[in-house]
């Protein structure tokens, strides 16, 4: 093929990232991992092992331990024992540990990126250029907070032993969002990675060993939902931080109601992506690609509801369809791939089910004629038009590469539609008019609003939701409050006086109101 022909066809040859370093690392561990408790690898007490696989091939990558209440208990005891000495360190000493973690994340960034892509199925371009650099950024930023803690948060102390449960969509990044602020404020942690994607958390455990992080400060217990439940219910945990579905978030709130565990929840979303008629449409389309097809749409803040101003709807959907036909779907380790594999069969089936239901409710489904790989778990990028605002695909989180498009007429209607959801995690607003964009941004019920941009994250900016998308923030100054308490409050005595008075007080009689 001549150069000219190549320019016309724009075909890429295969460009796989070298997986050897990650595979060597897996082999070095004999492809079998225990829990990381008290600074050492521990075999599971009773749960045995389960396997984690590459969703793009179905090949087993390694066996990991299934955590049970006994493993969780051992991890909590290690974290409790480590708490005193960890807090006795100066802020500067803790800052050095966090800084060392950040450095090693950068040093091992290729191995971590490849491992992430193999375990999760996300394109290597994303894990290499977004996930892992943000992980390092998060630890650098929070090394700074450890250094400044006493100056910036006088009178506040750490919660103590923290249980953290993270999802499978950004495995190592979610770990960083949880562990970095917890350690910088002087907490010790037990982290349970997602069942489908435990490998980078285990690689992180090795980094903790490598930098001589004091034993027990970070403990990693792998397993499924039952492992998470054991962590949530453990009596000696002071705080639970959870990222995942709203349904599980509710269950965790109920399960911790009788305790004094502090709780932060980062839950689901159905985020609007609003495009006004005066937008730079080509930029908006590129934004949309990032908004809904980033990480196969398996993103809690994915811009899954496209709200287009009516006047440009036809032109815009044509552009979107054109762009969709050029998205490259295939082996996630290929550096030229846009859309990788869906994390697990159960997730793929959920996407299929919801799309079918949406179509049954009247949506028109369009998918590009791109061939899917013959093996592995893939779902094509999907555009649903003619979507009614009450349709299941407009209301429920799909967590897949599926965009539900609707139209609006006025800015006011855009805000109404955008806020017509139980969620409130993120929103994206596109307009070349600063007045329109900021007028709308102010009215959106969402924890993050991106103007003429989408899916931007930084350690200095708190991320978290309004409404049923949860509470608490991760990142920034506001995120640290989730891991701190006023010192006086932590040691405040029980409210005795009022309780005694209340119990002595006879139930007051009721009687009909008289007069007036």
């Amino acid at each position, binding site marked *: 093929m001549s150069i000219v022909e190549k320019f016309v066809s724009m075909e890429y040859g295969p460009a796989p990232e070298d997986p050897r370093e990650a595979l060597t690392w897996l082999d070095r561990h004999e492809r079998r991992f225990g829990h990381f408790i008290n600074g050492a690898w521990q075999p599971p007490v009773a749960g045995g092992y389960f396997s984690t696989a590459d969703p793009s091939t179905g090949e087993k990558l390694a066996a990991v331990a299934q955590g049970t209440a006994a493993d969780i208990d051992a991890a909590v005891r290690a974290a409790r024992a480590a708490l005193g000495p960890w807090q006795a360190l100066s802020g500067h000493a803790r800052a050095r540990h966090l800084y060392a973690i950040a450095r090693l994340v950068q040093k091992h960034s290729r191995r971590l990126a490849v491992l992430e892509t193999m375990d999760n199925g996300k394109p290597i371009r994303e894990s290499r250029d977004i996930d892992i650099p943000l992980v390092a950024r998060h630890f650098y930023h929070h090394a700074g907070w450890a250094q400044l803690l006493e100056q910036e948060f006088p009178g506040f102390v750490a919660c103590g032993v923290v249980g953290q449960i993270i999802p499978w969509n950004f495995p190592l990044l979610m770990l960083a969002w949880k562990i970095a602020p917890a350690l910088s404020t002087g907490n010790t942690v037990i982290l349970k990675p997602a069942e489908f994607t435990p490998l980078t958390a285990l690689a992180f455990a090795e980094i903790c060993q490598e930098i001589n992080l004091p034993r027990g400060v970070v403990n990693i217990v792998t397993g499924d939902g039952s492992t998470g439940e054991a962590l949530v219910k453990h009596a000696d945990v002071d705080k639970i931080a959870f990222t995942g579905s709203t349904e599980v978030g509710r269950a965790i709130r109920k399960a911790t109601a*009788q305790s004094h565990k502090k709780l932060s929840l980062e839950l689901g979303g159905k985020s609007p992506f609003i495009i006004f008629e005066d937008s730079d449409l080509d930029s908006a389309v590129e934004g949309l690609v990032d908004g809904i097809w980033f990480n196969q749409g398996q993103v809690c803040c994915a811009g899954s509801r496209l709200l287009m101003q009516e006047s440009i709807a036809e032109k815009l959907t044509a552009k979107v369809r054109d762009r969709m036909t050029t998205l490259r779907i295939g082996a996630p380790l290929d550096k030229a791939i846009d859309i990788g594999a869906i994390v697990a069969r159960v997730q793929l089936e959920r996407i299929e089910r919801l799309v079918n239901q949406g179509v049954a409710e009247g949506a028109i489904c369009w998918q590009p004629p791109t061939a899917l790989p013959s093996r592995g778990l893939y779902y094509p990028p999907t555009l649903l038009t003619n979507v009614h605002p009450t349709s299941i695909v407009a209301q429920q989180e799909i967590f897949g590469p599926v965009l539900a498009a609707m139209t609006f007429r006025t800015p006011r209607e855009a805000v109404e539609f955008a806020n017509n959801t139980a969620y409130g995690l993120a929103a994206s607003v596109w307009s070349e008019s600063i007045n329109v964009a900021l007028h709308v941004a102010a009215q959106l019920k969402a924890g993050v609003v991106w103007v003429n941009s989408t899916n931007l994250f930084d350690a200095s900016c708190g991320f978290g939701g309004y*409404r049923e998308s949860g509470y608490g923030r991760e990142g*920034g100054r*506001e995120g640290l409050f989730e891991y701190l308490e006023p010192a006086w409050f932590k040691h405040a005595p029980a*409210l005795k006086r009022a309780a005694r008075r209340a119990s002595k007080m006879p139930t007051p009689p009721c009687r009909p109101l008289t007069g007036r």
Partner: protein
Amino acid sequence: MKLYIGGKQARPDSGYSIEVRGADGRLLGEAPLGNRKDIRNAVEAARKAEGWAKATAHARAQVLYYIAENLSQRGEEIAGRLAAAVGREQAQAEVRTGIERIFSYAAWADKYDGAVHNPPFRNIAIAMNEPLGTVGIICPAEAPLLGFLSVMMPAIAAGNTAIAVPSEAYPLITGDLYQVFETSDLPDGAVNIVTGRASELLKILAEHDDVDAIWCFGDEASGATAKALSTGNVKQVFTNEGRAIDWFDAKQGEGRWFLHHAHQVKNIWVPYGE
């Protein structure tokens, strides 16, 4: 005493009242027995008053200063009535500290600013401190006036609207505040007060899907109830975890900790720079 809903004094739906007695058993008065319907009306009124969030911070500060001024003018009289329930000394301290507390949150109203972040992109992120919306508040029992002010003032300084269940031990004192609110330019419905059995009203508020957050200051059991029943619309829950808070101590009874719970951060990313 009546309920205070949407800026109007209202008779309770039940038509019943509860006797309120002092520590010595003397009958001090009667408070309305609020129920589910009263809470529903109060939540509706609070939702309607959400324009309060859009008032300028300066305007909110001004209203809080007016509340302090008007309370101050009636301070002697209110302390006198409160004395029957908590003794003369505490009553005077509650009024004195209460006025200070309102001043404190009037001061904060236009100073609890957000931030501008400089992320490593061609953007700035404007971190706005926004109110939660409508907050249901179970007020502390132990300091009927000061406790009410200590939780209500940060909530409304932030721009929230609220439904408060005042101290079960002596709810009557909040009745004295209706006139204070009415003469202070506080919009109707920004503050609503429903008296009754706190444990029952707590459940109704916690289960109400149009309430955005629950603040519950009471014993351990009520905190647990607030958390367990708040899951329908995933309310933010702020409680004292059954611990004692010394409302007379400014270090414990006011400040950033309360303001943090009265706000949620919205980060608006805007293209900026070259």
